[in-house]
């Protein structure tokens, strides 16, 4: 330090003489110069650099003389002497010598201090470069299981809160390499949006997190390790976040699991879109009217958000496709929604559910209410309708069945020796910590989270998962720091559901909206929620393109080999 400070002090004192005129005192100039010179010397980097660095520092320091002149001579000194700052033209002209003095002082300081330190180091040896700051070892390993809203938001929040703390490592284990924005999934199935546009790559979204693409096979709660079947390594943890979400729950037997398409992942949406296009192409070549009608009947099981949005989207898509298939008539096309209750969209108020049903009916969707899909076989979907006294079974000739009628927590949860509810979701405290398991947290669709105010379990929606993720991230940081945990509470903002072209229902903080305005709300709100600017732009472009061009009917999955394989 002395090799920098001493030359800085002396060179600063010398250069400070140039400030004498402006400060009306040579000794004051030398004193200010000495202080600034010492600080400047201490701030010099190690290593010092060649002669070019001398030139850099001389002119940089000279430039910095300008604000110093403004601060000291134009403002500070006049104020100290009870006068107004001298920033008028006359005042600044009067202070021109001080300006020249500060500029030359800066230049001399940079030149002299850097030059003299170089000479000193030549004779006394170069000051040791500051040791490369070695990052401290990782002390806490946070592992997040699940790449859905809950898991990714937890990782993002932890990245924000832990920032450059190298003692905490973050790992996210996900079966997919992207976060799927599920509210727009129906638009992918309906060929309105490109599939990848609603998925955000995890690796580019989470720069501070190690992303492990793997399926979780088991969690050893005692050894505090996560096992994955695809990798030899086990992933140790100090804090484990269970955010594995839910999977479609298809009833076993009755052929539904074999014949129904699921609607949960991006691959599911792509498969549905291709199945629709495939069915149209096959119907176009089919001469048998009944068979053609079966090909053009698409049954959606479940009248919740997913089912209603999918049925509405498919209705728009398929009726638009008819223009390209002159052999097929609108009468032969059926989008059929089967729902177990008397009204659809139980998440919304009754009036909005009724509005949605009427609008969808008007646009061509067929509803089978108070009914459920009981079985499926090739070309046939069997439904049971609730009668006054007994259930009535009915067969619908349909080649396509999509199942949206139920989900269950990830099967991994069933393997854990943890308290669960009847669905199989892990029950947690209102801090999202699993009771009796230090460092274990759960949230989202795979957990039962009691609200801190009401004590009631939170609904398994993305809206709640996002807020739970923020709380869990905060609580993990608090736990690491030994601070008290914060309980989770969130009042739902509302719900939005789009059921067709320019038609949506919205219930926001008790206010009900429907029709075009609600549709605008849906698009605006979900576009803003879509992660990443790039994705927003891509989706917006897709929507604009749709204004001018028809939806794409290019088939990207060929079902013919699969059919041949099934027959053999």
């Amino acid at each position, binding site marked *: 330090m002395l090799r920098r400070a001493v030359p800085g002090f002396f060179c600063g004192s010398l250069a400070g003489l*140039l400030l004498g*005129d402006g400060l009306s005192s040579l000794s004051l100039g030398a004193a200010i110069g000495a202080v600034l010179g010492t600080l400047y010397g201490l701030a010099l980097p190690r290593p010092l*650099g*060649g*002669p*070019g*660095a*001398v*030139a*850099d*520092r*001389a*002119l*940089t*320091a*000279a*430039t*910095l003389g*300008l*604000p110093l002149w*403004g*601060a000291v001579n*134009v*403002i500070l000194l006049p104020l100290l002497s009870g006068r*107004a*700052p001298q*920033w*008028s*033209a006359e005042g*600044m*002209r*009067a*202070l*021109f*010598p001080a*300006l*020249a*003095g500060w*500029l*030359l002082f800066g*230049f001399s300081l940079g030149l002299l201090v850097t030059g003299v330190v170089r000479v000193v180091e030549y004779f006394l040896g170069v000051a040791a470069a500051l040791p490369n700051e070695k*990052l401290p070892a990782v002390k806490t390993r946070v592992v997040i299981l699940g790449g859905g809203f809950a898991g990714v938001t937890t990782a993002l929040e932890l*990245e924000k809160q*832990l*920032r*450059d703390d*190298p003692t905490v490592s973050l790992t996210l284990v996900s079966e997919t390499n992207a976060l799927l924005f599920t509210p727009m999934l129906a638009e992918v199935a309906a060929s309105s949006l490109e599939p990848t546009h609603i998925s955000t790559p995890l690796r*580019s979204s989470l*720069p*501070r997190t190690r992303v492990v693409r793997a399926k979780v096979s088991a969690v050893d709660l005692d050894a505090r390790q996560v096992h994955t079947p695809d990798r030899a390594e086990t992933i140790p943890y100090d804090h484990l976040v269970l955010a594995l979400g839910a999977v479609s729950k298809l009833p076993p037997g009755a052929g539904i699991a074999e014949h129904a398409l699921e609607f949960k992942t991006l691959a599911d949406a792509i498969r549905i879109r291709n199945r629709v296009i495939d069915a149209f192409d096959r119907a176009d070549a089919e001469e048998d009217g009944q068979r053609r009608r079966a090909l053009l009947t698409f049954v959606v099981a479940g009248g919740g958000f997913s089912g209603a949005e999918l049925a509405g989207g498919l209705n728009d898509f398929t009726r638009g496709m008819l223009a390209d298939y002159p052999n097929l008539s609108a009468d032969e096309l059926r989008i059929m929604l089967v729902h177990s209750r008397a009204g659809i969209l139980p998440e919304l108020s009754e009036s909005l559910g009724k509005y949605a049903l009427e609008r969808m009916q008007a646009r061509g969707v067929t509803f089978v209410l108070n009914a459920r899909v009981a079985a499926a076989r090739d070309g046939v979907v069997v439904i049971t309708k609730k009668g006054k006294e007994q259930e009535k079974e009915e067969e619908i000739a349909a080649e396509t069945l999509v199942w949206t009628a139920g989900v269950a927590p990830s099967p991994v949860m069933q393997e854990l020796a943890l308290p669960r509810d009847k669905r199989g979701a892990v029950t947690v405290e209102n801090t999202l910590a699993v009771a009796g398991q230090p460092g274990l947290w759960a949230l989202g669709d795979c957990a039962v989270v009691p609200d801190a105010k009401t004590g009631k379990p939170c609904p398994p929606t993305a809206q709640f998962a996002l807020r739970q993720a923020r709380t869990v991230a905060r609580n993990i940081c608090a736990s690491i720091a030994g601070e008290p945990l914060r309980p989770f509470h969130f009042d739902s903002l509302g719900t939005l559901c789009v059921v067709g072209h320019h038609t949506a229902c919205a219930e926001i903080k008790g206010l009900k909206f429907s029709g075009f305005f609600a549709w605008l709300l849906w698009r605006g709100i979900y576009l803003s929620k879509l992660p*990443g*600017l*790039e994705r927003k*732009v891509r989706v917006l472009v897709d929507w604009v393109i749709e204004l001018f061009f028809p939806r794409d009917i290019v088939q990207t999955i060929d079902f013919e080999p699969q059919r041949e394989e099934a027959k053999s």
Partner: protein
Amino acid sequence: MKRSTAFLLAMGAIVGSLGAAVLVWLGLASPLGSATAVVAGGVLGALFAWLTKARANTPGAGLLWALAFALVLWLASSLGAKTTTEMLAAARLHFPQLVGYLLVFGAPLGLVLGLVSRREKGAAPFSLSRALVAGGLAGIVGGWAFGQWMEKAHFFPLIAGLVGSSSPGLGKTLHFVFALIIGATFGLLFQRDVRGYGSSAGWGLAYGIFWWFLGPLTLLPLLQHHLPDWSLAHGRELFGSLMGHIIYGLLVGVIYAALDRLWVGFFIESDPINRHPHGPGSRTLRSLGWGALAGLIGGLVFWPQIVAVDGLHWIARLAGGESSTLGVVVHLFISVVLGAGYGFLFERESPDAGAAVGWGMLYGISWWFVGTLTLFPTWLGASFTWTNEAAAGALSSLLGHLLYGAITATVYLLLERRHQDWLRLDPRFAAHEARLERPVGTPAPALWFFALGLGVILPILLS
């Protein structure tokens, strides 16, 4: 292959001596004797060559370093007067020396050393076509803006006089030819150093000032077969032209950077092999946000100065009112918008606080020229008046603009650092971040000193 230090020192000594000899011949080397002046020129030339041997490695870089050192030399020669009045008078009296030091001593020294130096391995590649096309187009647009004042000041017939005519149309044509040539030379000289829009505008500002000394003060009279008049009085007469050159330079810099970035983006960075992990979209949006916040803080610091000079009513008039409250709102709104502009223009330009203050003050002074002296009068319905009197009246806000720029840039740097720090945990991101930053060794320090020094000194001396 790099040139040896001895060769560069010899070149510096020779060009420095020749420059000093010409200054002696022009009578601008007093109070030194002829021989002493030539020897001193040689020594200073060699010293400059030694100091900048790793810096002045292109003609553009050499030119800027040399202009900055010439300004230091002139300032040093102006010191020594006993009283304040004497010194200001001495500085004004020595105005011809300033022109001489810059054009006869500094510019040739820097250009020659930049030409004979060999650039180091790994230096940015140079594209002649990009420099000429982008620079030429930028020059034409900048020339159009400058032409507005020239038309008002009846300057075109004067230009037409170069070819023995007084036709304004011919003068205008010649003006655009010059604008195109200067723009193209901007690309040729500074392509390697220009990175973002803001730094490019800074280079343009400095180049515009340089061309004021070289063009109307020197070449124009020479082409008209007169001896150049480097007196302060003549400089005062040409204050409007100085403003025009500054605005022209700023426009050339910004447009050159825009075209250059377009070129680089379209032909180079769009290649997936060269693509950054994050597109420029999200990066820019983040910079705009940080800049807006920094601008708000800068505006709050600038606020008391505006109150002190009773400027709030004047600012309120921009929104059609008179009240102080409206003035505050408009001032803060402008501060935020300009702050966002700083974020957009100067993204990743500052590796440290010193650099941030340099760029920030350059940004602040640019807005003093563009905003206070040009756009504000136009917005208020009057025509812009690039006169000494207008500059003298606006000097009271010059310091505020400098402080606003310095504060905005410092706050922006802190926000940028805050984001970068945690990215540095991962070596891949650390390397990527390092590639985006302005490297050490560009003539940025010379640019700050030259452009800011003269940007403040010239209005004080000429107004």
